[in-house]
């Protein structure tokens, strides 16, 4: 190997090592920052981990929004038309937050099954249904239809 070639190989080698280390750290961080989505039914079935950042979504149950006296802490129920979970959020809700509207909340599940949200998203389009919520509702619907079919049989 000529000295020049050796130099070039060192350079490439160093860069590869650097990129590999960076990639390793990045992927680890990536895993820690993944937020999985759970439906209220999955949360009720105990499938969602407590204490980790997750996302839940569904429709805000009519008449469930309760505001505490500070005017900022809100509790409401989110349902996939099968099971329901209670979400608590402190702060100003998005413009499109409304009862009956599909929402997605980021936050952590407490030991007492209360979901404390750090962020509540209601997309800026009133026809918009978060895809996860649409799927969750569809799953419930399919299950209901499936049950009926079984009963008929």
């Amino acid at each position, binding site marked *: 190997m000529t000295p020049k070639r050796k130099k070039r190989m060192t350079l490439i080698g160093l860069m590869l090592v650097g990129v590999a280390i*960076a990639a390793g750290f990045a992927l680890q961080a990536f895993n820690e920052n*993944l937020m999985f989505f759970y439906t209220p039914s999955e949360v009720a079935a105990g499938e969602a981990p407590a204490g980790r950042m997750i996302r839940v979504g569904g429709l805000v149950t009519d008449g469930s929004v309760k505001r505490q006296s500070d005017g900022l802490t809100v509790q409401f129920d989110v349902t996939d038309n099968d099971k329901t979970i209670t979400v608590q959020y*402190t702060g100003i809700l998005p413009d499109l937050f409304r009862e009956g509207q599909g929402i997605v909340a980021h936050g952590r599940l407490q030991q007492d099954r209360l979901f404390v949200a750090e962020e509540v998203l209601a997309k800026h389009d009133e026809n918009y249904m978060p895809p996860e919520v649409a799927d969750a509702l569809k799953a419930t619907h399919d299950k209901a239809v499936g049950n009926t079919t079984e009963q008929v049989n």
Partner: protein
Amino acid sequence: MIPELGNFALILSLCLAVVLATVPMIGSLNNTPGWVALARPAALGQFTFLLISFACLVNAFLSNDFSVLYVAQNGNSQLPIIYKISAVWGAHEGSLLLWALILGTWTVAVSLFSRKLPAEVLARVLSVMGMVSIGFISFMLFTSNPFDRVFPAPLEGGDLNPLLQDFGLAIHPPMLYMGYVGLSVAFSFAIAALIGGKLDAAWARWSRPWTLIAWVFLTIGITLGSWWAYYELGWGGWWFWDPVENASFMPWLVATALIHSLAVTEKRGAFKRWTVLLALLAFSLSLLGTFLVRSGVLTSVHSFAADPERGLFILVFLCIVIGGSLMLYAWRAPDVSSGGKFDLFCRETLLLGNNVLLVVITAFILLGTLAPLIYDAMGWGKISVGFPWFTAMFVIFTPFLVFIMGMGPLSRWKKQDPGDLARQLRMALLLSIGGGVLLALPLFHQGSASMGLAVALSLWLLSSLLLSLRQRFRYRKGLAGILKDFGARGSGSFYGMIIAHLGIAFFIIGITSVTQFDVEQDIRMSPGQTVELAGHTFRFEGAKAVRGPNYQADQGTIRVFNADGQEVAVLNPEKRTYTVQTRPMTEAGIDAGFLRDIYVSLGETLGNGDWSLRLYYKPLVRWIWLGGILMGIGGLLAAADRRYRMASRPETVAAPATAERLATESHS
């Protein structure tokens, strides 16, 4: 009638795009000058018909022609005129038409301003742009035609999304698209060069100004988007790592790598293959961004199912463009001679380091953006990648990037003695470390390691820029010499670089300051109540109902006083409900300043005249966009460099004195 005319013009422009994509290309391959000469008229014709088509759609919006489905969905007779026009690109179909029109504009611009280019090279470049154009126009005609009629025609239109009824967002998409599509010029130059097998310094010199201008548009477009999100969305954020934003940021990062890599190719003839690859990559990412965002694929894989035709078209088109160009690259690139030799440590290596870092950041952002799609498609569950991850990726790599940026402009091409560079930068290093430590200590405020790092990086950048200036001025005699230098060959590139890098310094300080020291409070307030925040007193004076042209609103009044009790601002945030789309929207009240912004938005009414309010104090937030603007100005200066206008002239200029020549080379 007029919409049909628009549709017809669109079909004609497709026909001309087909001509443009084939005839000049074939002509250039078998040396038929007549066919090659067709490139210019075809490009001009395509542009003309696209312009007619676009004008017809604008006319449909202005004349409230709700028999056109797209106008019925996005237009409204009550819209102010400016938003009737911006509604043209407010949704999928129209924004594609704008895309195609801008592509047509760039094509004509290349044909007009590249008269010195050899005819067959120009023909190939225009042909490749014609091919891209075919893809876009046929996508529109076959799956998303903006001129489709609806019967019976509704009496009133569905209105433009209220969020888009804003001046910033009226001009943001055209700017961004100018950038996205502008990268197609670099792409086409690269493809043409691969076909012709001639990748040399001249090629780099031709594509450099085009790439720079596209990059400037992209920079300004992203800056505008961030500014818009900040004041319009009502919660004070200026960047969300949203897929839509990532889609514009990734091409920007790669284009940034590209303009630096092109510099090496032009000056030293090195990195040719890498530069070509970056040119292909930058445009591929633009395409990916446009399509994925506009078609809604990134929100959900299921929009493929919702409109399988569109999804399929997108997939096939992306495969052809990306796959085809990479195949051509794999086939032709090995023949490219490797360029000028260089040492282990020199400006080339530093620029290579910057390129690698930029590409690595892009790769991670791409991973984070596409991961939800991949997880969903593989059935691994529904995920989203958290905001902190993207931020972490950016924060980890940026310090290295800036460290290299400080050394790059001072180092020499080909061979640089590390000790020599270290001696030059000794004071800069001391200054930045000192400044950083000072700011990290709790002297002026609570102290923050991040702020320390940011200040250190900015000082490093700043002092190295000053050193570069000193080095350049050393060979210019007195003030007159310096002034004369401003018009000289290569001076645009040099001063452009200085200003753009200065922009980075502002940007880093702005971002860090606002993320570390912004103060935010959500609070319930009754009329007359006051609250203290960040040394200011906010007094809520209550809210009253007001009417706008196409909305009703509650308008709050908040008086802000400084520590001495003087009134600094009266803010009027609004909660609007638009008449047609009947949805609430927050309009923030902002007192903007060079050193800080005070930002208030209305939450909800809580009865008895009480409102929930969101109050922010954002130090140095404007520096973020100031950085973007400086980068844009720098890019423009660099693109305006005299040597691009002299590009085709043979280099007969007598070599200046050796010292001066060396200095010029190591700066420009």
